């Protein structure tokens, strides 16, 4: 395995940034420029196969995916497409089942003729797709599934180069949370988390990192809720029996709403002062909880529409709201950016061939609503910063927002891989 | 003619059970359907009731065609039925078994709970006992009582004397007499010739799905050849 030290890595990143920067020079972010209009003509439309869950209890996530990706396609086509070629997009229901994910991907590539794949919600689906991606040989831009194994094992170790991930992985949900937690006056942490790999992994990483960052901590209780839990009363009891100072929970979507509502009723937030919800800043949760959302919970997500507070992002949120009458969810941003990543890659490489796209995407920097993303060459993970903050009310919004945001730089908690061995685990003191 | 069954053919699956059965019952008569096991007595009653609709033929109740009508319709026209296995509703108490039959029929008349209990005083003591806890004899009383509660013009009784001790059979004859006095027409199917002789006016003898003989009960009783042929060893 090729060894690489940090300086090398930074150099490459720097170089990538330079190139990309040059490409974007003098133009508004995301706005197609004339620079690549002269590029050799690409044949036919560029086809994007996008799969997300469109049925069942999580169907709302699929809709948010669609809004983002659809908006990007509309914008791009309105302005003449990618390098003069129209973008076509087709959505398919992934049903959250791995075998359906595989079937969809095969359909997109082998039958419909997709040039680029995006979407995928669950870790199980992403991992099921990983082994066949080299055979399908299309770039798969994962916009939701969070398992670190995808980029760490399949891209980095096994060299399945077709896989990229637009969003944060479990490292953000666990390690970054630990970085926040270490500064909180809480020594005893407990969790109520989903009873599947995502929940298990995040809790394990959170504990490991926090232990290193703050040796005195203990973890007196954990409680696991199977998918589809509608009643968290017993889980809440488990936590309250342990009497912790802090609660960490990777519950998400509807189940997080249910959990928060029931925990509030049970007075959990009166007893436990420090609560961390790594995916609590999702729009469905914030909107769903509305005014009932307790104040002062630490929340984060893959993206939050008020961050970064700059013109690009604010304009995008405005466009999104105008088009869909919704605030963008994090999957919307990921879906949107996934299409723009394709655009950037195609325009830069002048080709829609997978090989060219991979080469271009590796190390590419991309300005997106969530801020500047860097696709790490080694594991194809997009590096970008997502804030943590505490819930608070704001008269401008009918729901609680993230106040007092705190940004942990992605690279400080996101270093493993490619840096294996001693010192690769957080805390990653430089 | 209150009941006129003409030439009905009834099948159970492929089994041609009734082969052109015809019989008639006058208003106010007590008529017996005699025959050994398995000759078609039960099926005849079920066909009249609409539980096993005949494939062809005609059944008229007071000149109204009821062949092929659903059972509940026949019941509401005033036909009471007691099946051979009685089929007392096991989850219902004695009172409820009676009540349900009365309220479902829109007919009014002589018969009500008090009158039935007058007829079978034992049922008064068992008012709150569930059907499944009753003895065979008690069920039989309840079965007859239930059939009466609808104030029917005609009741069909399947094997009323079967399994009853001699003393009770005698009692039953008395009871049927009382019922008859109230103007109820009775068609019963039974194997017990002595019982039928005392309880009925006329009799039909059925064998292998066809009526073989008919006549006044006294005549049948005195016809040794007929008895030997159709009824006894």
């Amino acid at each position: 395995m090729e060894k690489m030290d940090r300086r090398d890595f930074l150099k490459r990143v720097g170089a990538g940034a330079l190139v990309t920067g040059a490409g974007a020079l003098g133009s508004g972010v995301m706005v197609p420029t004339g620079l690549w209009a002269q590029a050799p003509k690409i044949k036919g439309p560029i086809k994007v196969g996008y799969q997300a869950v469109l049925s069942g209890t999580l169907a709302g996530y699929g809709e948010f995916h669609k809004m983002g990706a659809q908006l990007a396609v509309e914008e791009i086509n309105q302005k003449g497409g990618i390098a003069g070629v129209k973008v076509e997009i087709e959505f398919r229901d992934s049903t959250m089942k791995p075998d359906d994910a595989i079937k969809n991907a095969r359909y997109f590539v082998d039958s419909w003729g997709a040039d680029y794949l995006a979407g995928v919600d669950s870790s199980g689906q992403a991992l099921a797709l990983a082994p066949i991606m080299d055979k399908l040989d299309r770039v798969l831009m994962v916009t939701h599934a969070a398992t670190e194994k995808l980029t760490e094992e399949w891209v980095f170790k096994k060299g399945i180069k077709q896989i990229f991930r637009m969003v944060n992985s479990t490292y953000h949900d666990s390690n970054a949370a630990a970085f926040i937690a270490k500064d909180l006056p809480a020594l005893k942490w407990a969790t109520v988390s989903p009873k599947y790999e995502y929940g298990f992994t995040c809790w394990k990483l959170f504990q490991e990192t926090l232990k290193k960052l703050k040796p005195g901590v203990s973890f007196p209780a954990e409680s696991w809720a199977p998918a589809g839990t509608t009643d968290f009363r017993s889980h809440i009891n488990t936590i309250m029996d342990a009497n912790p100072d802090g609660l960490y929970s990777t519950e998400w979507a509807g189940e997080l709403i249910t959990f928060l509502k029931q925990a509030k009723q049970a007075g959990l937030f009166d007893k436990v002062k420090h609560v961390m919800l790594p995916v609590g800043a999702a729009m469905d949760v914030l909107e769903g909880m509305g005014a009932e959302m307790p104040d002062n919970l630490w929340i984060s997500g893959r993206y939050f529409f008020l961050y970064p507070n700059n013109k690009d992002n604010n304009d995008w949120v405005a466009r999104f709201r105008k088009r869909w009458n919704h605030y963008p969810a994090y999957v919307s941003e990921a879906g949107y950016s996934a299409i723009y990543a394709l655009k950037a890659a195609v325009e830069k490489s002048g080709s829609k061939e997978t090989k060219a796209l991979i080469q271009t995407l590796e190390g590419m920097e991309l300005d997106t609503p969530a801020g500047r993303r860097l696709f790490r060459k080694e594991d194809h993970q997009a590096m970008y910063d997502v804030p943590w903050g505490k819930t608070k009310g704001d008269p401008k919004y009918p729901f609680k927002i993230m106040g007092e945001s705190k940004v942990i730089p992605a690279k400080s908690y996101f270093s493993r891989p490619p840096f294996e061995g001693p010192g690769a685990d957080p805390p990653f003191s430089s | 003619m209150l009941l006129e069954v003409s030439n009905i053919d009834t099948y159970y699956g492929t089994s041609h059970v009734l082969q052109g059965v015809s019989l008639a019952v006058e208003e106010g008569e007590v008529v017996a359907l005699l025959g050994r096991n398995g000759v078609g007595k039960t099926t005849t009653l079920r066909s009249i009731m609409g539980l096993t609709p005949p494939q062809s033929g005609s059944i008229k109740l007071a000149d109204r065609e009821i062949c092929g009508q659903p059972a509940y319709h026949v019941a509401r026209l005033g036909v009471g039925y007691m099946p051979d296995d009685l089929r007392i509703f096991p989850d219902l108490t004695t009172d409820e078994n009676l009540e349900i039959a009365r309220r479902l029929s829109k007919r009014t008349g002589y018969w009500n709970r008090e009158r039935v209990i007058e007829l079978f005083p034992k049922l008064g003591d068992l008012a709150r006992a569930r059907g499944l806890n009753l003895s065979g004899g008690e069920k039989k009383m309840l079965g007859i009582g239930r059939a009466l509660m609808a104030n029917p013009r005609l009741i069909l009784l399947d094997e009323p004397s079967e399994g009853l001790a001699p003393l009770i059979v005698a009692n039953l004859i008395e009871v049927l007499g009382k019922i008859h006095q109230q103007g109820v027409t009775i068609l019963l199917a039974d194997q017990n010739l002595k019982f039928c002789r005392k309880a009925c006016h006329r009799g039909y003898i059925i064998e292998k799905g066809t009526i073989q003989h008919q006549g006044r009960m006294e005549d049948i009783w005195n016809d040794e050849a007929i008895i030997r042929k159709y009824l006894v060893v």
Partner: protein
Amino acid sequence: MGDLILQIRKLTNFFGMVCTAKELDLDIEAGVLTSIIGPNGAGKSTLINLITGNLPVQSGSILFKGREISRLPIHQRVRLGICRSFQIVNIFPELTVLENLLIPTLALSGRTRRFFAKIEGEDRARDQVKNLLEKVGLAGVKDTPANVLSHGDQRLLEVGVALAVEPSLLFLDEPTAGMNPVERVKVLENIRQLSREGQTTFVLVEHDMDIVFSLSERVVVLHRGDILGDGTPEEIKNNVQVREVYLGDSV
């Protein structure tokens, strides 16, 4: 003749709800065509159910050829040589006549365990079934599904299926019910013939007294779970008690 093929001792709990439990003793002699008669609810069917295993025996013993069988499952009793036909048609309705008869024939020789052989290749069983078809007179309809046969033919098939396991003791529960006269004669001839051959001891439950008296060598009268009469047809015909039972109790 004269060997006891079946000995029933102190069998209880075998008839309907009407009467209290009594104990019953009954012997069946090998080779003697026996009929069991009695009015409804006398306990005839229950008795057969107990002997053949359809109902569990509560107490008492049943010895078949000297062997206690009252706790054995049905199929083991069948393999020992006890079989029965049913009062209501009880065959394999959607299978053809041939298949109906093949099942017991193959089962008897343990060949139904063969899961990869072709049924066409089961020559021995096919020969046996062919004989049987001739015997019961269904050869002409052998490929007809059983449920489209006439009722009489279904009854014939019912008897045929029971015979196919080559029982040494066979209970026939109203074998001629629902048959037309021609079929009836055919069945009765068969029974008489087979009984004479002596491999099978027949026990008949019948209501048709013509049949009972013309066929049986011994008649047992059951009434409320009790044996009311037992003897030759002539003896039974002249038994006053029996007559009473059929015409109704002393009213």
